[in-house]
């Protein structure tokens, strides 16, 4: 059993939780994820690591109420326990293996859509700790669903907010914001990291292909064990089948078959719908 040390409602239906898991806090790097099981009858669900505190021994997760299982986690209160958390899983972000000298010569742009701000945050923080200040686009449907803007500002060079409905910052999708930065504001980027809904990562990758900028995406495929055992997270990258859990979760966005990935996310849609009807 793992204690929820802290729980905060950070936006509509979005919660931030610090879970006591000292082993994971000690060994986690940006880009990795964990698998959580809320209770004995629960599913194993993959969640990206948003932050980790080696001293306190906590791992920070951000969960949005989307279906039956995420609802069950979000119903847990501060001081209560979840059944299991395991990790860190997957490979750390590629840039943690690059020397500080090389890193400093690169200008990074992060594009965070919706809940994607949670996994983008530790990457921006890590780069900032290594004296690299990236730019960040945070996209949300509307103002009250925008998360991590303040936190991101303390580590990024520039934070550009964009909302679909124009209720806050730039009005438009993150891809519109990207076009604006590159075409109108004449910004130059060496590398882009885009994390958010699969459909957003698809269109960001299409756009950056046009701009010829290397783009890394972090896939949120369906998984069971997260250790390479089940193969549910199969994804086609450059014509080869990869497992998101052990080969990823980060891949070169220009080679990912997003249409297949989007379709594979629908695998259990009917069952999930039934579960939601039971639970909501």
């Amino acid at each position, binding site marked *: 059993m793992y204690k929820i040390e802290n729980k905060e409602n950070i936006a509509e239906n979005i919660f931030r939780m610090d879970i006591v898991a000292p*082993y*994971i806090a000690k*060994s986690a790097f940006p880009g990795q994820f964990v698998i959580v*099981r809320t209770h004995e*009858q*629960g*599913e*194993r669900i993959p969640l990206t690591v948003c932050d980790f505190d080696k001293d306190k021994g906590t791992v920070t997760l951000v969960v949005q109420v989307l279906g*039956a*299982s995420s609802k*069950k986690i979000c119903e847990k209160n501060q001081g209560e326990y979840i*059944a*299991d*958390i*395991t*990790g*860190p*899983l997957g490979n750390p972000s590629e840039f943690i293996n690059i020397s500080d000298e090389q890193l400093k010569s690169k200008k990074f742009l992060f594009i965070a859509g919706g809940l994607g701000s949670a996994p983008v945050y530790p990457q921006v923080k890590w780069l900032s700790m290594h004296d690299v200040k990236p730019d960040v686009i945070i996209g949300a449907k509307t103002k009250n669903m925008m998360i991590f803007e303040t936190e991101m500002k303390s580590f990024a060079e520039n934070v550009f907010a964009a909302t679909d409905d124009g209720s806050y910052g730039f009005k438009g999708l993150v891809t519109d914001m990207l076009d604006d930065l590159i075409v109108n504001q004449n910004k130059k980027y060496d590398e882009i990291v885009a994390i958010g809904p699969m459909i957003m990562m698809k269109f960001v990758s299409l756009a950056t292909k046009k701009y010829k900028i290397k783009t890394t995406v972090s896939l949120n495929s369906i998984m*069971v*064990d997260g*250790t*390479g*055992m*089940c*193969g*549910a997270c*199969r994804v*086609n990258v450059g014509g080869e*089948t990869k497992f998101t859990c*052990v080969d990823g979760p980060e891949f070169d966005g220009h080679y990912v078959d997003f249409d*297949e990935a989007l*379709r*594979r996310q*629908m*695998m*259990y849609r009917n*069952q*999930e719908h039934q*579960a939601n009807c039971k639970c909501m």
Partner: protein
Amino acid sequence: MANKIPRVHAREQDAKTRIKNFDEVSYGYSADEAMLEASRCLNCKNPRCVNDCPVNIDIPEFISQIAKNNFAKAAETVAQYSSLPAVCGRVCPQETQCEGSCILGIKNEPVAIGKLERFIADWSRENNLNFLEKKENNGKRIAVIGSGPAGLTCAYDLAKIGYNVTIFEALHETGGVLAYGIPEFRLPKKTVVAHEIENLKKIGVQIETNVIIGRTFTIEQLLDEEKFDAVFIGTGAGLPKFMNINGENLNGVMSANEFLTRANLMKAFDENYDTPIYVGKKAVVVGGGNVAMDAARTALRLGAEVAIVYRRTEVELPARREEVIHAKEEGINFNMLTNPVEIIGDEKGWVKEIRCVRCTLGDPDSSGRRSPVVIPDSEFNIETDVVIMALGTSPNPLIASTTKGLQINKYKCIVVDDEGRTSRAGVFAGGDVATGAATVILAMGAGRKAANAIDKYLNQQ
């Protein structure tokens, strides 16, 4: 003459009933049935069954004790050799091991050694007998990675002789393949598997679930920072193989590992559990091993019409014979000499058909089995909603890739010597991670061998 008595067949759930539930198929022997069956044993002077048992259980001895109604003594005999008899009695391929070499089998049916082993193990559990003994603690610490048959056996043997053993398990539940792979209807989890784990805890073995060695800790950290004196790697062969044919990433195609993990570990067959599982109306399982049989029979119990597709003939099926018989009784359709070449999807990307070719058998290959040869122009399609690939598994490369100096072979198996020593001092391995996918009993044998080697290594230090 004792051998005039026909083999006593254990009672089973009727096929029509059992395909609607996940309860164990075989009821096992009653005491009277066990004694009658035990009386068939000739008690050979030179028992070949013992030689063909990977852990060399003194089979004639425990069987003669059953025949004499001396069950406690029989249980004690088995316990000297095996820490998981209730498991092995159920899942060992007896027909190619102990029972395969039984003299009675030449003219008649062999003694039902597996069923007798199961009987005595169940009897001893039900009567709360245990033969746990533990020598004085020697203060040395061993990390066992993986809680499957190899790890459990290694941990048990080392704890008995005084070591402090901690098992690290990646999943949330202990048992490895016993928990995620083998279905409830062959191996009941709450009674049989849970009991074995409890016994381990009773002799002081610590179990840490949710720890992935190679990620949460590396082997180096276990040795250098966590101060373990030796490490045993028993992480099995968990990575599923696919065929690399067109259409394999369509919705509805999955590995048997995924399908069985959802059903067994996550209990997706029980509506009180949240994990989803999909079988459609028709399911095709590709492969002929125990895992293929398990996946097929699980899909059947979840309501699908199921066909097995296998490229050789029934004679070459690697599955235990009892499982093949059970699968047939239950109405699984066997398509032998058939090999898939493509999976065809509908316009939305869901499986619609699987395209196969017919084969004949050619000359024996390196495994000694006759290899299938494709018959030209023999393509045909089978309509299906789900394709489950049960083609075997290979070891997870995570530990090898995060441990310096740990040698692996071309099959990604960790290289070990006869005693289970790897290329790194203090690091031992055994079971499927060293041999590739094999059986529970071979993994147990390897776990035991490595336990001996670890003891020897630490005594020499």
